[in-house]
């Protein structure tokens, strides 16, 4: 394991499946990261940018309406996994 989990809150005993993590995002951000409405699209963002944004939301460094509350539910490993999954799907 290359990533050490330092989530400030809860770290799941077992990381959730990366595909299911990415599908969780699709409900609001659209399938393949393309949102048809006012919610920001993820399409075209790099894995590093998505992971950094999630970590910033989780730590409260980046203001948000819902993303701070959402990001607190995931470990570092899950944030890395979902960021790679979304970046690969929405190129």
């Amino acid at each position, binding site marked *: *394991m*290359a*990533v050490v989990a330092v989530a*400030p*809150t*809860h770290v*799941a005993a*077992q*990381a*959730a*499946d*990366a*595909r*299911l*993590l*990415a*599908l*969780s995002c*699709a*409900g*609001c*951000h*659209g*399938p393949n990261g393309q*949102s*048809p*409405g*006012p*919610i920001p699209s993820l399409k075209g963002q790099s894995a590093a940018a998505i992971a950094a944004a999630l970590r910033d939301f989780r730590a409260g460094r980046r203001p948000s*309406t*819902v993303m701070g*509350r*959402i*990001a*607190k*539910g*995931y470990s570092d*490993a*899950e944030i*890395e*996994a979902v960021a*790679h*999954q979304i970046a*690969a*799907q929405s190129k």
Partner: protein
Amino acid sequence: MTAALTRRRVMTLTAAAALAAPALARARNKARVVVIGGGFGGATAARYLRVLDPALSVTLIEPAQAYVTGPLSNTVLAGLRPIGDLTQSYATLAGRHGVEVVHDTAVAIDAGRRTVRLAGGRTLAYDRLIVSPGIDMRWDAISGYGEAAARVMPHAWAGGDQLLLLRRQLEAMPDGGLFLISAPPTPYRCPPGPYERASLTAHYFRQAKPRAKIMIMDAKDQFSDQALFEDGWKALYGAMIERVGLSDDGRVTEAKPAEMTVVSEFGESHKADVINIIPPQRAGKIAQDSGLANGTGWCPVDPATFESALAKNVHVIGDAALAGAMPKGAFAANTQAKVAALAIVDALAGRPAATPTYLSSCYSLLAPDYGISVIDVFRATSEGITPVPGAGGQSPRTADAAFRSQEARYADGWYASITGEIWRS
């Protein structure tokens, strides 16, 4: 998570659609999955079964030619949107995703033989079945409130006809009139829904009938996002909305449509100009008739796969399922459908089940530019489906007008995204 594993998983998902279909079809007989119900749960499941394994044969059974969503329905009551904005078509699921959409009603499930019988006479065989029937009203719960009474005192909690009936009644109500909402006991579809309904109706009255009043008779003491709603009502609508909780005799036990009156638990009569009774609920009819529901009226399931605890190879998702702490709502049904679809694809391919994760975002509008949200992140644990400690929660009580306005925009955005994902992409 190692980089190699991540890459492999990415390959699995992105390459499957393009490359694997012919090979899989040759490798085994085409497995058949039948999905009952074309709402947020069933339609999501049908779509992702085909996306995750294009070799599957997927049949979706839904009586309605077009689906009118529960989310946003209160904006129709308030005259903010036409019902066409809430109406979803099955054309993309059929045309782009190759889902066989059958407009019929499932009337019987034989879990031993693995067949579903339809009202039209057809019998369909399946390898796996997904049951996503939504809710059924408990017509026996409030004395005098059956389907005939609902044509006078609409529930407006499912389907377009009931919604439009209540809208017409609200439009015809005189200024200075009383609109009474009877809110059900927990659990029921869309926990904040009755309170959003009161809010947006108040917004409409504010413009059209400023002397009107709204009374919520509630069969419970506490409700979803209570402090946020009560703060908002005071700020936006003054004293227009009054709520009577269970302990203050809020539970409606009898309806008298001929007198436009309801009777509460302690025997008091309440007359109103328009009465909306949202009755107690249970899992949809097919779940009751086929033995998928237990004594609670809802369907027990495995928290990691949503396979029924009462029937093998049958998965129950959405409002009908007993999903631990998850609220009954569109986003929950959507996230459960994805987990169940992947569990079925993996099981049919002989792979172990993936570790699930569940997310639910639930927006409510108190006014067109005033939104609030509840977020829940859930895991399957030995205790069932439980919230991740420290995550999720409600919008802050101290948020400013800009925050509320942004959440209202995101409520619209959420609707555009999730219905786009399911029915238009």
